[in-house]
């Protein structure tokens, strides 16, 4: 097994033994250092690869049938930049791929990785890409082999694996794919280039418009996926903000049957008028009813299908409240720890060659899963329920059967448990439920009595902690039984607005519309938050978000249309299948962009004005604390004095000479308005962050009961 600590690893061999002068070895490229380590330990004859460093870059020397050098990358080492011209001008249609350290200030460190690949590839006579088996991984490996290793992409082979298990890695090495998948590479590359063209041109157009109008620089961005995502968020927000509820009435009753009280609902869930509802109430309250009819239905509920990345992200949000991005990061860590298979998969299939029994046996070593796994192992034939979606590269997400070598953190533990239980549940039998529906006749008005119980748990046994089903038990009933309508209740109700999207429902919507990829959707949602276009867990579009969409709808309507991005995705797939050329797609995109950018330029002034106002409003809102408690008409805001550079809270009416109230604020750390009101005095509060301390809510009311230095713990 690989060593647990990096200290243990670095001490194994003090000096490098492979230099540029060494000849005849195989160079294996991986996407990340952790994967390189796993592959090295799996392939080394004695399970003791040598861990070396060159220019601070780790790599592994492995003895097998021949000498292997396993060198990791750190994700993409190459990126796209504008070929010539100033950074602020647009449109830009000339671009090239360059090392990331030449393009991004923050990526300076990638230089030594490229140099290490270049130096260590000198003596290699065989090359293998062992990057993740997907479009991104293929592209990462391709650029390293092409540029850093000096044109070795044509002779390189490809390792294909879905888990980092030793036997799978050995098989992937022994039986590599003879060539890189150039169709995938072409498709992945086109996607990057199309996204770059849209992103750079439209983002620059927005930013330049603001600069033109206000003379100030403010980062604004949009893109091929960001645009449509923000667009349907804004559409939902508009529907919510314009919503007018309509009233209706609802009747329910406490019914006494054989000394137990059960709940019954009036046949019409929405009673249109209060008069009608009151008539029913009068006629039924305290009266006797008769069971006119009842039927019992047995329902068979099929087991859930195994996780693809989207369903895992949605389930993790629903159960634990983790954002899609966070779930993907956690799953990625579990994959690197060889606890689960590759998580960035669209597949809902579990092929038998993964070894169901072997995995279940291995899982049964853990106390929590022992009984559950044994139950499945008793079966003669194990057949999982599968979904429709397929992914040519990987199966659905499943546990490898390995148990954690070290105690997992709570998030990792939760996601792993979720994946393990979902895997086991997929093999479970149908759950059997009984639904009882009875109709009560009370003075010729009908009420429904509903019961629900589980007859056979089936797959639910395995997935129990994550199921939210409530059983409703009814006493034994028969037609003609009399019941007492103990109390009928009338409730005033109103129709509700459509719900805000949350991370989970947004992800589902993106999947349905086919925008973004399994790997990028989480990131796109995060970018919308980072730019200030949306906020909160229940995603609310900000004023800035509305204005961005407004501008894009007016001047570049097809970039916010989900149709455009769907069409592009289809074209990418055609490139993948070899039925379309990258050059054709790029030419089409450039033609479209030229028209849109021209339209943008014509209206730069009005776009700039609208966006500047929105930015100003957004910035003011960021500093707005609440209503002024003294004058009642002004608003309290966080102000920084131009003269003293000190910050404090003041009233907006100060500028009209109507209110002079002010409150001091801490001069260190970050301060911003908090959502919570003070528990003691109900004044608004501010959130204060000091470096390496937990943020806390500060009540600035000098007469607050909780004063005297007491902080309101969050």
């Amino acid at each position: 097994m690989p060593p647990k600590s990096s200290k243990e690893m670095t001490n194994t061999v003090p000096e490098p033994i492979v230099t540029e002068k060494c000849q005849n070895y195989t160079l294996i490229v991986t996407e990340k250092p952790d994967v390189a380590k796993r592959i090295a330990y799996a392939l080394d004859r004695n399970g003791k690869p040598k861990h070396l460093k060159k220019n601070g870059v780790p790599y592994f020397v492995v003895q097998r049938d021949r000498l292997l050098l396993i060198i990791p990358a750190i994700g993409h080492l190459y990126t796209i930049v504008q070929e010539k011209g100033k950074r602020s001008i647009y449109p830009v249609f000339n671009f090239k791929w360059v090392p990331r350290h030449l393009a991004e200030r923050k990526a300076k460190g990638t230089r030594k990785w490229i140099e290490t690949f270049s130096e260590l590839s000198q003596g290699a006579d065989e090359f293998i890409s062992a990057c993740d088996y997907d479009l991104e991984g293929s592209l990462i490996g391709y650029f390293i082999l092409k540029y850093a290793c000096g044109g070795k992409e044509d002779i390189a082979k490809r390792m294909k694996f879905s888990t980092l298990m030793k036997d799978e890695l050995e098989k992937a090495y022994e039986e590599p794919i003879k060539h890189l998948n150039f169709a995938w590479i072409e498709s992945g590359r086109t996607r990057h280039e199309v996204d770059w063209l849209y992103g750079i041109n439209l983002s620059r157009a927005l930013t330049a418009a603001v600069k033109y109008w206000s003379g100030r620089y403010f980062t604004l961005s949009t893109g091929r996926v960001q645009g449509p995502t923000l667009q349907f968020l804004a559409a939902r927000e508009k529907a919510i903000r314009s919503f007018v509820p309509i009233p209706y009435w609802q009747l329910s009753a406490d019914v006494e049957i054989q000394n137990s009280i059960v709940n019954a609902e009036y046949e019409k869930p929405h009673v249109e008028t209060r008069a009608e509802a009151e008539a029913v109430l009068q006629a039924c309250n305290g009266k006797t009813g008769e069971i006119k009819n009842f039927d019992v239905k047995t329902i068979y509920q099929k087991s859930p299908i195994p996780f693809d990345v989207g369903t895992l992200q949605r389930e993790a949000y629903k159960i634990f409240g983790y954002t899609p991005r966070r779930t993907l990061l956690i799953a990625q860590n579990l994959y690197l720890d060889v606890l689960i298979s590759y998580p960035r998969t669209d597949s809902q299939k579990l092929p038998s060659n993964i070894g169901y029994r072997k995995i279940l046996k291995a899982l049964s070593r853990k106390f929590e899963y022992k009984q559950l796994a044994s139950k499945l192992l008793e079966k003669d034939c194990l057949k999982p329920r599968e979904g429709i979606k397929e992914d040519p590269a990987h199966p659905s997400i499943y546990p490898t059967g390995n148990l954690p070598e070290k105690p997992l953190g709570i998030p990792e533990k939760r996601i792993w448990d979720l994946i393990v239980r979902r895997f086991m549940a997929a093999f479970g039998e149908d759950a059997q439920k009984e639904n009882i529906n009875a109709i009560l006749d009370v003075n010729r008005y009908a009420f429904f009595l509903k019961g629900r119980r589980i007859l056979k748990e089936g797959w639910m046994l395995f997935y129990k902690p994550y199921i939210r089903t409530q059983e409703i038990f009814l006493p034994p009933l028969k037609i003609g039984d009399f019941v007492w309508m103990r109390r009928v209740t009338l409730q005033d109700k109103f129709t509700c607005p459509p719900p805000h999207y949350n991370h989970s429902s947004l992800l589902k919507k993106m999947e349905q519309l086919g925008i973004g990829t399994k790997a990028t959707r989480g990131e796109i949602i995060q970018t919308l938050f980072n730019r200030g276009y949306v906020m909160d867990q229940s995603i609310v579009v900000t004023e800035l978000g509305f204005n961005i969409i407004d501008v894009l709808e007016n001047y570049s309507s097809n970039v916010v249309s989900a149709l455009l991005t769907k069409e592009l995705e289809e074209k990418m797939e055609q490139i993948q299948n070899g039925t379309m050329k990258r050059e054709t797609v790029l030419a089409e995109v450039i033609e479209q962009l030229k028209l849109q950018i021209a339209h943008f330029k014509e209206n730069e002034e009005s776009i700039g004005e609208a966006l500047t106002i929105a930015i100003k409003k957004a910035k003011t809102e960021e500093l707005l604390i609440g209503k002024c408690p003294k004058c009642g008409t002004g608003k309290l805001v966080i102000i920084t004095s131009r003269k003293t550079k000190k910050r404090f809270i003041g009233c907006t009416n100060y500028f009209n000479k109507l209110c002079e109230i002010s409150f001091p604020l801490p001069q260190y750390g970050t301060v911003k308005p908090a959502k919570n009101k003070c528990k003691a005095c109900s004044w608004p509060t501010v959130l204060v962050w000091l470096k390496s301390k937990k943020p806390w809510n500060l009540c600035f009311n000098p007469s607050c009961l909780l004063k005297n230095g007491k902080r309101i713990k969050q």
Partner: protein
Amino acid sequence: MKCVVCGRDAKEQYCKFHDRARNNVIHKFAYWQRVTGLSWKEYLKAVVENSYTGAWAKEIAEHLLNNKDE
């Protein structure tokens, strides 16, 4: 022209957001009147006080309440 409610750019009296909300408020009145028998003013008050009413619809209802000419 600026929206009389929020000050955003508008083609007529209201920006497109408040115009949509206004149409909604007006359109729903007939139903409210039928099921509750409320007058126009009472209806607007009920809409303003209702927690399910959207922010723009609330602003429009308030504006209509305070402007008798509308």
